[in-house]
């Protein structure tokens, strides 16, 4: 199977997020980037598929600070090719980036034909779209998101498990080639020791590829009015005191409402 995984770096919400003075973007000073969590799952699912069905995994990522680490880690985990896309401005919103990625996929030598393009089903910056369906639309391939399992490749189709609600899941049949938005891999993303990543740094070459067309102004079709920290509509009444005090107060509360 020829698998392509689209991954990218997004702001790490463990750090405090600050809004830039123009109010239309995040303050880059406070920012640290991290691999988008469901993209990590997409890579894991691809690697699991490769282990089961054979083939190759290529990881493609737009350039960003620390993206080299992402790519070397992917290589250490088992990706066969790692490619960095240049010329795509990182920033809020994904429509432009997805467009550029989709165009690049068609243009990178040896990448297509592929069987599956996998990427995260969503990310924390998807203001103006989701990457997977945008790429699917551009390539003219079918799409399915919220994927938690891929198996049974046969006769040009693949069986995909998708999550619904209330614990229900659905088994879908998707014609290949297709684009899948992965919610969670069948196993948690594997750990790769630092020593292996370092070894990958020496043994792997990150291919670089210029995004093939002038990338449109991000979000030209969606004008950002302002970013803000959410003002909570309300806030909980906080109970203070020792653990015993609070337990007592909560008991009172519950009793008043007839819950005890």
């Amino acid at each position, binding site marked *: 199977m020829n698998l392509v995984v689209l991954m990218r770096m997004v702001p790490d919400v463990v750090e405090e997020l600050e809004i830039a003075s123009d109010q239309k973007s995040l303050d880059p000073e406070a920012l640290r980037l991290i691999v988008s969590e469901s993209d990590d799952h997409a890579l894991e699912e691809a690697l699991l598929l490769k282990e089961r069905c054979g083939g190759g995994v290529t990881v493609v990522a737009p350039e960003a600070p620390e993206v080299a680490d992402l790519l070397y880690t992917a290589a250490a985990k088992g990706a066969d090719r790692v490619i960095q896309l240049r010329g795509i401005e990182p920033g809020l919103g994904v*429509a432009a980036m997805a467009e550029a990625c989709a165009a690049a996929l068609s243009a990178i030598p040896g990448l297509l034909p592929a069987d599956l393009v996998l990427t995260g089903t969503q990310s924390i910056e998807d203001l103006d779209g989701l990457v997977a369906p945008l790429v699917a639309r551009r390539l003219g391939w079918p799409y399915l998101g919220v994927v938690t399992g891929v198996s049974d490749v046969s006769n040009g189709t693949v069986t995909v498990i998708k999550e619904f609600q209330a614990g229900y899941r659905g*088994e879908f049949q998707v014609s290949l080639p297709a684009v899948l938005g992965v919610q969670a891999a069948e196993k948690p993303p594997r750990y790769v020791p630092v020593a292996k990543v370092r070894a990958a740094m020496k043994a792997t070459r990150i291919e670089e590829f210029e995004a093939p067309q002038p990338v449109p102004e991000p979000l030209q079709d969606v004008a950002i009015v302002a970013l803000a920290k959410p003002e909570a509509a309300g806030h909980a009444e906080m109970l203070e005191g020792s653990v015993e005090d609070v337990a007592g107060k909560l008991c009172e*509360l519950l009793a008043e409402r007839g819950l005890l």
Partner: protein
Amino acid sequence: MAGNIWVVADQWQGRLTDITFEALALGREVADALQVPLEAVLLGNGCASLAEELGCADTVICAEHPALAEPVPETHARAVAELAQQRQPRAILIPATNTNWGANTLLAALLDVPGVNFAVDLKAVDGALEARCVLYGGKIEVRVQPRKEPAVIGLWPGARPADQGRSQRKPSVEQASVSLAAEPKVRLKRYIEPEAGEVDLTRQDILVAVGRGIQSKDNLELAEELAQVLGGEICGSRPVVDQGWLPLSRQIGKSGLTVKPKLYLALGISGAPEHVEGMKDSALIVAVNTDPHAPIFNIAHYGVVADALELAPALTEAVRARKG
């Protein structure tokens, strides 16, 4: 016809979901502000009877086709796109549920217009449409104005109370036809039911929910004891289920259950949007978390900054003493 506000109805197993009504409530406000009609779009095969529930809208555009019987976002997006190209609405509100995840983006791409994701509010500002979207795990809000029509808005749960979108009124129903590929490339083969949990959590009055703050599977028993003494059941957020500490049948949130108990006690849960959407309508929400800035405190009625592992046993004792 042109310039109307559309709400695409979301269905699950033959019934309309709460978020459909939330979207209708929001759509109603926007349509009234812009003084245009509100239309609901109902897709399916043999679902026409659902149209009468959509009375909050002025008209229901009902499009039925065999291919729409399966919950495949691609197919549904194509159908809405076809209708939209004919009828040129001003804005299309699509509920963002797992069922039709991605449909909003596909629809926007098909219509070559901008899509807006994770919207929790929409209003008319000086004649323009402005959406408020929640990003970065709930930490940052962005207000945006789509510059092209129709504006495709992916709506997050909780924008308005669902009841606000329910109406006794019977809307006028218009049958529409769409032409779709006979052999879609994405087909639903079967539903996989969750393993039967012993209890139906949606019927419980009291739920004790655990999140990552519970730290390990062993500590579950502290929560279980508390649930037992309160006469309720235990449930959890996604990370806890992913770890295997609780079965999928006890997951609350986007891919799990939506519950509205009389008491929802959230222990060590941060309050990420995907979880909150599953419990925000609970009558009494009490949250315990060591992080005073945890988003859960924004939707809880009462909050405690403490270690759930210390508070749970203390509360168990207090309740036991109280109950005698």
